[in-house]
């Protein structure tokens, strides 16, 4: 993990030398994820890694695992209460969509293109958007 996000060195925030070391727990988990237009999408509920089996021993000298996705949805419940969720229900935001890691995780795409925003879209379309004034700016 430690050498992975060097490719995403934060640009906008002060005091970040290029290629800084990030702690997944301290700097990524539970941070706000914004889309490219600064619209909140979700919080980083969990991370998905490649190249590592859960519970198995890591041999010395084996290649470092890489982050493959930000997980959300039922993952939050798993982290709070433990257990596993069925793979089909996990909502993933592929890590290659991440544009910047700072005090927020910024994506390079719009929220509307993401599975992680489907609940928001559904509530917007079927409930809030149907109440008079729901699609207008406040006055």
């Amino acid at each position: 993990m430690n050498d992975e996000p060097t490719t995403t060195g934060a640009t906008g925030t002060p005091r970040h030398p290029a290629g800084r070391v990030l702690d997944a727990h301290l700097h990524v988990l539970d941070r706000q994820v914004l889309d490219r237009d600064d619209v909140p999408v979700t919080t980083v509920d969990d991370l998905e890694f490649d190249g590592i089996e859960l519970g198995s021993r890591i041999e010395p000298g084996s290649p470092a695992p890489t982050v493959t996705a930000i997980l959300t949805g039922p993952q939050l419940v798993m982290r709070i209460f433990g257990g596993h969720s069925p793979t089909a229900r996990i909502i993933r935001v592929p890590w290659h969509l991440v544009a910047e890691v700072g005090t927020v995780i910024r994506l390079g795409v719009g929220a509307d293109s993401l599975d992680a925003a489907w609940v928001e879209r559904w509530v917007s379309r079927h409930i809030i958007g149907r109440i008079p004034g729901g699609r207008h700016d406040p006055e």
Partner: protein
Amino acid sequence: MKKLFAVALGILTAIGGFVDIGDLVTNAVVGSRFGLGLAWVVLVGVVGICVYAQMSGRVAAVSGRATFEIIRERLGPRAGLANLAASFLINLLTVTAEIGGVALALQLATSVDPMWWIPVAAFGVWIVVWRAKFELLENVTGLLGLTLIVFAVALFLLAPDWGSLAGQALQPSVPDGEPVATYWFYAVALFGAAMTPYEVFFFSSGAVEEKWTVKDIGKSRLNVLVGFPLGGLLSIAIAGCAAVVLLPAAIEVTSLSQVVLPVAEAGGKIALAFAIVGILAATFGAALETTLSSGYTLAQYFGWSWGKFRKPAKAARFHLAMIIGILIAVGILATGVDPILVTEYSVVFSAVALPLTYLPILIIANDREYMGDHVNGRVMNAVAQVYLVIILAAALAAIPLLIVTGAGA
């Protein structure tokens, strides 16, 4: 006028914390039973909320992160959820009480049974949250809430024995016939009201709503230094009025009509009209503050889109949560429960949630990744740490005192 509007956020936040329906009554109860013997608690509370609200405002201005995002980020999902559950429950109870409070204030003005006013008040709160711009709602309620200054004016008109009032305030003692535990119960209740967590949720989220940046740190400080001391002053003025009029006459405060009695006695109908407008604005403002706070906390914990600067359809779950919250509040009120009783409990519970709210703010305010050069200074940290100890003591004492004293009976 522009300067006044600039501090509207601080004023509204403080009014919601210090003189919402529960505090209006609690302050009058305290005044009628202990005189100004608990004024020192308000002072301690004002300093504490100034310290932490200023920190949360500065974090929001510099990093753009509102308080509950920080709570989730620092405490993690579990402790964050515990805080969310407690804070959300307090918010919901307070929304309930404030909607009831608006109905009670309308009853005071019209003599129409509050049951008829509850749906009107609830719809009013919703429509403002739904349609009004953030600046509009804070300016109107903040400005109208200022009419509560009539309590301070009334205190002067009553021409009290200032020496004896000062004596009560400067040499606090438990009056004869009042148990010591009751005195401390009200001390915790007043402290909890002054530092109630929804103030920092609302203040920091309001800073994001108003799109504050590093340039606005001074504005944040001004808001804090005008708003909260004003709230504390109003709170003491209400207790002072009760101490002068109600304490000698041994009148027990059970409803709003006793709260405004000293004002009517001092300034007649005009003063009473000001007081009613002020109470209406304060309870309505507090209803908005707590309704929005319930949406802010949920949205920020889960990372939903939020904010009144967006169209409701662009912050759908945020608005849905608030609609459900208001409906639950109306449901609770429909059972005929006394709204004032509801806040008295919620204030005590808020004391319990205090440490989980203020510790993360202190940590982030020292984090250079978030704050750059605007981290806390040494004095600020020292004061904040002293307050963490006080907060922890209040939190630990709150529930036992509630049980021992039978809610201050």
